[in-house]
């Protein structure tokens, strides 16, 4: 915030026609951002925190003015920067539907025609008639989203609003956005969730420090973003004692390239490279996978997997092949230990020498990705539907279903 003195100087400079230098503390939140989005596309806007994504949406929704440049939006613009904008706690659900709907740009008659559907979508029940301040946070968010969902604008700008609310709500909102796209509306979707962006968006814009780094089909842009978030060289730590040393890497099986980002459900090899300065007999290797707090999630044991005790003359690699990675999205640590058969104490140990991240992905072409809140691990399973046939007595005591018309019911 500039002081009054600075303001006056700035103002006088402008009057004199001088183009004043940038005032202290200013920087460009967006610079030379140029793009056009065709009608009916769903465009994801991705980038690190502070890269200008929210500012871009704020400019497009006229909440803040650009210093230079122009944007043209054809059609009705609806924005979801936060659900429930304008809700007044003292008013009840129905009154707030009209208030919020009006603020979002719907006319009174439009709201009245959609009122029943909105109430049904919100599914908050009898509390509709009580002041909103009494609602639970879940009800509040459901009501707010229900109103926004029926806004039906030509262009919808959404800012990570879906990060709020439980998994059920997120599912509903994602479905609604997909519907919007299907109806030929244009959607701009700011998100950190790459799986959602991959699922929902056909194109994406990658912003970094206010500039457009890449724009194009979503998969390509997402990959570029992930690459940019990865440190270029991955340092492999070597742990050693007088007798032995070890290095742990996670690699992609076919290419042997090291990956710090693992895709959920993907195939990876945990490769433990061990070297001995003096001959080492009857070794047993163990790789441990821990969560961020250091809680042990799983141990990969050479002996338990059928690898006999091994000798290390110079170098050996113990390869643990993990297929269909069941670790749910999150950050993990890995460590290892080398034992000599029969001994309690490990000859070589590294507590947490490697850190890696599991990124969300879907399995088996499913519509919905596995996310952090599903737990720690996905048990290998598949899900199916079947429709059991119950015996007629149990499901239909009066026999109304199976009796032909006109005959009296069974006693």
């Amino acid at each position, binding site marked *: 915030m500039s002081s009054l003195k600075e303001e006056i100087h700035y103002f006088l400079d402008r009057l004199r026609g001088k183009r004043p230098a940038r005032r202290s503390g200013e920087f460009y939140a967006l610079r030379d951002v140029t793009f056009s989005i065709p009608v009916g596309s769903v465009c994801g806007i991705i980038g690190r925190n502070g890269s200008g994504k929210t500012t871009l949406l704020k400019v497009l929704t006229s909440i*803040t003015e650009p210093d230079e*440049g122009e944007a043209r939006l*054809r059609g*009705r*613009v609806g*924005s979801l*920067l936060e659900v429930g*904008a304008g809700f*007044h706690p003292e008013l009840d659900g129905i009154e707030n539907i009209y*208030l919020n709907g009006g603020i979002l740009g719907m006319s009174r008659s439009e709201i009245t025609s959609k009122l029943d559907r909105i109430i049904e979508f919100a599914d908050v029940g009898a509390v509709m008639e009580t002041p909103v301040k009494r609602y639970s946070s879940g009800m509040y968010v459901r009501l707010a989203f229900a109103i926004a969902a029926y806004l039906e604008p030509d262009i919808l700008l959404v800012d990570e609003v879906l990060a709020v609310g439980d998994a059920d709500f997120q599912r509903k909102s994602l479905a609604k956005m997909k519907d919007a796209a299907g109806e030929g509306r244009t959607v701009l979707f700011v998100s950190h969730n790459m799986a959602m962006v991959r699922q929902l968006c056909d194109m994406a814009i990658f912003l970094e420090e206010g500039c457009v780094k890449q724009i194009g089909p979503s998969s390509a842009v997402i990959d570029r973003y992930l690459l940019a978030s990865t440190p270029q060289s991955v340092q492999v730590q070597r742990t050693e004692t007088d007798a032995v040393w070890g290095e742990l890497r996670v690699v992609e099986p076919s290419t042997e390239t090291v990956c710090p980002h693992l895709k959920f459900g993907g195939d990876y090899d945990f490769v433990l490279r061990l070297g001995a300065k003096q001959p080492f007999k009857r070794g047993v290797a163990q790789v441990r996978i821990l969560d961020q707090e250091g809680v042990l999630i799983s141990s990969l044991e050479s002996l338990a997997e059928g690898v006999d005790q091994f000798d290390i003359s110079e170098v050996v690699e113990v390869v643990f092949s993990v297929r269909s990675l069941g670790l749910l999205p999150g950050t993990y640590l890995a460590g290892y230990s080398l034992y000599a058969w029969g001994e309690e104490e490990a000859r070589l140990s590294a507590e947490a020498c490697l850190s890696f991240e599991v990124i969300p992905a879907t399995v088996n072409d499913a519509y919905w990705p596995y996310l952090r809140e599903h737990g720690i691990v996905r048990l290998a399973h598949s899900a199916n539907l079947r429709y059991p046939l119950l015996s007629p007595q149990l499901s239909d005591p009066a026999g109304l279903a199976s009796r032909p018309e006109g005959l009296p019911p069974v006693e």
Partner: protein
Amino acid sequence: MTGSLKRVTIVRRRSGWFDLDLRRAWGHRDLLFLFALRDIKVRHKQTLLGPGWLVLQPLVWTAVFTATVSGVAGVSTANQPAPLFYLSGLIAWAYFSQVIHATSQVFIENEHIFSKVYFPRIIVPLSSLISNAVALLIQFLVVLAFLIAFQWLGKADGLSWRIVAFPMVVLHLAAFSLAIGLLLGASTAKYRDLAFMTPFLIQVSMFVTPVLYPFSAIPEQFRVLASFANPLTAIVEEGRWCLLGESMLSPGQLLASLFTTSVALGCGVLLYQRVERTVMDTI
């Protein structure tokens, strides 16, 4: 092609002071009534007397003034019955104070909604003009009741066709209240301590406006200056003319007041619009 019939919104920097984008504001006019209605509803939710307060407050003040200012201090009430005199001045001043109270902190109070959704920001002060006008209407009816009562009792004879001009007075009042409200609202957005001025300004205005004393108490040579410096002076007197009949207001004074009101309103709107553009980055 339906695509070409759709409205195009252009987002760009508004240049200079006069680029007001009024067309967009007109497009959002429904919000005016929506907000006014909301404010009225909320004001009376979970209250005991509800709109009763609107009637009670000015009556209590009138009683107090009649007893103390007129009774004890003996200040003149321009040949009118004291209750009528004070009531007619009070309702105008009350409207002014309510509007500027509501508008002076508009950006700070509405920050959460301004930063999430777009609509022309001027709608909020305009809607407070409307919601307070409803209160004014109720109070006007109370004054009318008093007028009729006093007329019937033979104590006053001011009630006449002049009362039809009251809406014009309200317009003048609204314009000036809006002007001050916008100026305050725009200033406090950037410099928060200016908000402390508002209650002070409200209190001072009651004394520098002829609410407690008649317009005629101002020396003749200063009346134009007074109307120029404080347009409320003339506004209150206009109100008294409509309702009570007698007035010392000359056209010159009226014009002075209107001049200041227009200038203030113009500055208020321009400053407010200018601040509106980027206030969400600094608030």
